């Protein structure tokens, strides 16, 4: 999709026709702590998935 969009824009298409809107280049204010933040978030997701599996097994057993 992005390749088709880019080609159309380069060929003179309007910004309004793009599926992906043009967005400004912005660095994130949390860039310097991205690594620990994402690691925490992934661990949180892992624990939520594990908890869902546990509840699933318990529902099945009952």
């Amino acid at each position: 999709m992005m390749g088709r969009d880019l080609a159309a824009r380069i060929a003179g298409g309007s910004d309004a026709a793009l599926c992906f809107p043009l967005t400004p280049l912005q660095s994130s204010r949390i860039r310097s702590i991205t690594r620990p933040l994402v690691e925490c978030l992934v661990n949180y997701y892992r624990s939520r998935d594990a908890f869902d599996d546990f509840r699933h097994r318990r529902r099945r057993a009952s």
Partner: protein
Amino acid sequence: MRTRLFPLPFPPEDPSPIPAYFETFAPPAPVTEKLEGDRHADVVIVGGGYTGLSTALHLAERGIHSVVLEARDIGWGESSRAFGQVVPYLKHSPEHLARQLGHEVAERLVDATGRGPDLVFGLIEKYGIECSVVRNGLIFGAHSPAGLKTLHARTRFWQARGAPVDMLDASRTEALTGTRYYHAASLDRRGGTINPLAYVRGLARSAIERGATVCARTPAMRLMRAAGGWRVEALGASVVSPVVVLATNAYTNGEFWPGLGETLIPMRAYQLVSRPLDEPARARILRGGQPLTDTRRLFSGVRRHADGRIHVSADGPVFDMSAEAHVNKVNRRLAMLFPGLGPLEWEYRWTGWVGMTYDLNAHLHELARQ
């Protein structure tokens, strides 16, 4: 800029090879050119993955000549290492996108994404790309009550738009997948599977046949303004063009365009492919041929290839440059889904880098005007 305290990985330095398993079934990479001297092009594209090569192909269809510079081999990055599903969804729901982007923009994006598989399968058909294509739908299992609610809402949303998406009850889900784990699932017939390496090579071949110049193993080193637009230097040669497209995603070299790398979070993804299943297991597991994912938050993909191998997306260390998938976790999950399957021997393993963004949306930036 790479931070010192918590440095993020730098994927361009990752030497891990293109997946040998996909290589087995992919046509050879097309012959590419060596960049020599000082050339001119209508467009220079940095990055020979899906986005760069699709851009080159669509430009060639319009009679616009492009030069594609790929630092390694065609599809070196995530384009050749993906799970291989063609999906009509984005990370966020349509409602979330409408809140983020506004109704009109979100509507255009969601509509185009819903027709995304038509675009991919259309290109495959139009250009005769041999990439083990199977288009018989995607199955999403509901792994929890909340997941079931999400699936119902998504199914209703697409059904209202006339898309071929249906809910499956537990017995129908079991009939297609061989697992009793899910109370319900959805079947989206728009999607399917491909060999991602074969597809990206097919894009390259098609673009070359229609006049694009593709240069593999040609790392772009510098980008600077020049008479006539921009000059991209690579391996002692250069290309001048009024337009430059940077399509390197997770493998972006942050020094090539200041600030661009800082919009991306490179995260490692893992894939495992087993030895072929025996005949009874093949007849039972994923017999409908659709790939199975579910509503959990991380790594749920399972597909069965035509040669009877199970292929899973796996969890593992997120940022390590040299890391192994959590294989025990994969085995536990498969035992939960398919009791009696027994431990699988994982014959192929590979990793790659996915370019996440801070809002989990894909972004298109206009970095400068001439």
